[in-house]
């Protein structure tokens, strides 16, 4: 039977500003694209969904930005403390669809976290396009360099790397014609744009979506996105979806 895990926090780091990187002991295997659902502590009722950023046989790493009440509370745990974690949840990325040429991972802001573990699994040819608001917020560049053939950075204000959106970089990079698949995670405006570009170019594209969640396991039906006119559960049917299955029309 499945169950929740009490996981010892074995390392904690602060990346740029308000981004916290945690590594916990974890008894189950997980796939890139899956997420965990974490209890944040007293006074925070619902769990918070966080992508698995990396994982090994008996550990798991996740990285999160401190946003509201839940992540603020979660950030207060220290090495040696135990976290109540449900997971791994959801479906991983479809690595088998990566194609023969170059797979591309593309992420914006907190959307980059699930892509690290993914890029490890996609093989050495993989390239990454990572977007940040400004130079000071650029994180994990070296780690992605370690797993990818090339890492393209974009900042909104041009203070580092390309100036502009990741989608601008994507369009440029696609021009070469050697991209066989795209895996994206980020804010929904970015996802809609990536979907369009990929579909126009007829390249396989998979998106990892974010939606407000309750249970994380498919029982409450709150976390829906639109797929072919119907509402489907992101936690259970996703969070990874083939871009063609997702409607951004409203």
């Amino acid at each position, binding site marked *: 039977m499945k169950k929740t895990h009490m996981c010892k926090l074995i390392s904690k780091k602060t990346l740029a500003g308000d981004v916290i990187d945690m590594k916990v002991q974890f008894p189950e295997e997980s796939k890139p694209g899956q997420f965990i659902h974490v209890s944040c502590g007293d006074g925070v009722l619902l769990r918070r969904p966080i992508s698995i950023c990396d994982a090994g046989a008996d550990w798991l790493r996740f990285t999160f930005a401190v946003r509201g009440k839940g992540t603020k509370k979660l950030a207060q745990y220290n090495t040696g403390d135990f976290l109540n974690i449900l997971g791994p949840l959801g479906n991983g990325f479809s690595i088998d669809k990566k194609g023969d040429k170059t797979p591309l991972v593309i992420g914006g802001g907190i959307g980059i976290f699930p892509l690290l573990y993914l890029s490890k699994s996609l093989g050495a040819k993989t390239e990454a396009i990572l977007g940040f608001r400004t130079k000071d917020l650029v994180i994990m560049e070296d780690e992605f360099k370690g797993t990818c053939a090339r890492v393209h950075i974009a900042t909104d204000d041009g203070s580092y790397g390309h100036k502009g959106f990741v989608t601008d970089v994507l369009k440029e990079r696609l021009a070469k014609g050697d991209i066989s698949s795209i895996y994206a995670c980020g804010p929904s405006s970015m996802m809609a744009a990536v979907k369009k570009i990929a579909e126009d170019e007829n390249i396989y594209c998979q998106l990892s979506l974010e939606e*407000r969640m309750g*249970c994380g396991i498919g*029982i409450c*039906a709150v976390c829906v996105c639109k797929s072919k006119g119907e509402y489907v559960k992101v936690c259970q049917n996703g969070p990874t979806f083939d871009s063609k299955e997702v409607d951004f029309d409203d």
Partner: protein
Amino acid sequence: MINLEVDIAGVKLKNPIITASGTFANGREISEYYDLCELGAVCVKAITLEPRRGNKPPRIAETPSGILNSVGLQNAGLAYFMKYEIPFLRKYDTKIIANISGCTIEENCEIAKRLGNLVDLIELNVSCPNVKEGGVAFGTNPKITKEITKRVKENCAVPLIVKLSPNVTDIKEIAKAAEEGGADALSLINTILGMQIDVNTRRPTLANNTGGLSGPAVKPVAVRMAWEVSSITDLPIIGMGGIMSGEDVAEFMLAGATAVAVGTANLVNPTACVDIKKEFINYLDENNIDDVHEIIKAVKIF
């Protein structure tokens, strides 16, 4: 051995723990976390005649010790339920409660009729606050409550539970109306209508603007209503609203509930129902109670 068995209108539940409709889907997911035989009964997600798409997301928001939801009765419709969900649930030695939420009296009658005795109990949801077509209206007006209860009851092959809305001035009046309409049992409370506004975007946090409040925040209101209703009727009561622990179960039973339903807690912890059941048994044990009936309606009022 402690006797945990309770009787809801002739249907024997092996223990008083039921899942609250809409917080358990139809049991498939949770069946991977524990054996559904552990439960007194499974109350399934609201059923409508035709499939329903539900409301736009976001459909959930967290509030202090509670949640707001605006799922809007998304479900695959009666035919799907009968074809796939009943056979699945029947594999388990537990009772099935069908929560029906038609938009019209006729729709509810039709659903009840077609369910026949394929389920053990029918729970008529006259209280869902998320549907424009009248969901909430049924349960806030005693005349309509009585009428819909009567009509649906005529179409029920199994005992009928009426699920009451807390969004009323006098819950006793509505309970009485349901009893007069022929209800065999009452369940309460459904969610309390609430709203949350994001002060940065200035938008409601739910795309439906308002939603139903549930979870520990509402427990004092739910316990009060269970007690009020139990004081004016002898119908069995299924109490719910914010149950998170075994002591919460005891609190509702002391107030007058014969069984309880666990809702929001399932979202927080997939094993909530069995954890709560264990705690409840511990509570009975520590208090030397060998029959759960000893605590039903046993509150000593000042």
